[in-house]
């Protein structure tokens, strides 16, 4: 068992608070920069990477690829402007993939 680090990628407004609780923060504004940062963090020993939905929106491909791996865990978080619903969408996709039909969200939708 080895030690890993926790990172958060996002715009400055959303992530400054995380710094105080001891998470490594990487503030980026463009999705290209986010991609570069994400790639760098993956090859480093980060176990959990939080990324804001706004940035993750353009990186869905690579995140989907990372989700198949054992580590790291990429977790989408809302940013200071609120949630975009991508995180929930991802859960829905997982259900559809596993079961073949969406049985969790059907009631609401």
């Amino acid at each position, binding site marked *: 068992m080895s030690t890993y680090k926790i990172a958060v990628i996002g715009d400055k407004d959303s992530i400054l*608070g995380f710094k*105080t*609780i001891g998470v490594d923060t990487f503030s980026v504004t463009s999705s290209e920069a986010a991609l570069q940062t994400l790639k760098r963090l993956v090859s480093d020993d980060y176990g959990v990477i939080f990324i804001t939905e706004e940035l993750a929106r353009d990186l869905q491909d690579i995140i989907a690829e990372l989700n198949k791996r054992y580590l790291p*865990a990429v977790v989408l978080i*809302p940013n*200071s402007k*609120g949630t975009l619903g991508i995180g929930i969408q991802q859960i829905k996709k*997982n259900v559809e*993939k596993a*079961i073949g039909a969406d049985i969790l969200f059907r009631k609401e939708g």
Partner: protein
Amino acid sequence: MEIRVNPTRMELNRLKKRLKMAQRGHKLLKDKRDELIRQFLILVRKNKDLREHIEKELSDAFSKFLLARAVMPAESLEEALMYPTKKLSLEISKKNIMSVYAPKFEWAEEDSGRGEESSIYPYGFVETSAELDISIETLSDILPRLMELAEVEKAVQLLAEEIEKTRRRVNALEYVLLPKLEDTIKYITMKLEENERGALTRLMKIKDVVRAKMQ
């Protein structure tokens, strides 16, 4: 739809053995898939609840943080937050769910060695606003559940992947391999019976011929 083989008894025995093996594998995989789905459903429900809660709370914390930002000059805010008192470290162990290995996160806070009593606030209270304190407190309250979310979500993703794989295998066995084997076995049995009948008629015919010649 059958496999090209020589219709011999030996081949038949071999195929029957293969069929039995495939049926056993099929049953096992089906059981595995069912159990995986059961586990998956438990986890995914938890995942959904956690995510919904966290998204709400996190948005809350962020809006408080924005408020704090609004009432403080940007420089002094950054200065206040520059040196965190805590450092999070993460230990990862493996958790086995139906032979799917999912990471289990255990995190610990380390003081960054400034020798102070551990307070989550890295700044003095003189220059900063109360909103900042609140938003940081909320954030640090959310953190345990955020880590739990990371763990559950990862497990859900890995399980979904495994279920898809298992289901594909079950279907391949059920709809391709098993019918193929059954068809081939049927083909061989029929061919063998046909040969037997052929041999029998030939014998009878020969007998007739022989008998006719004797008379």
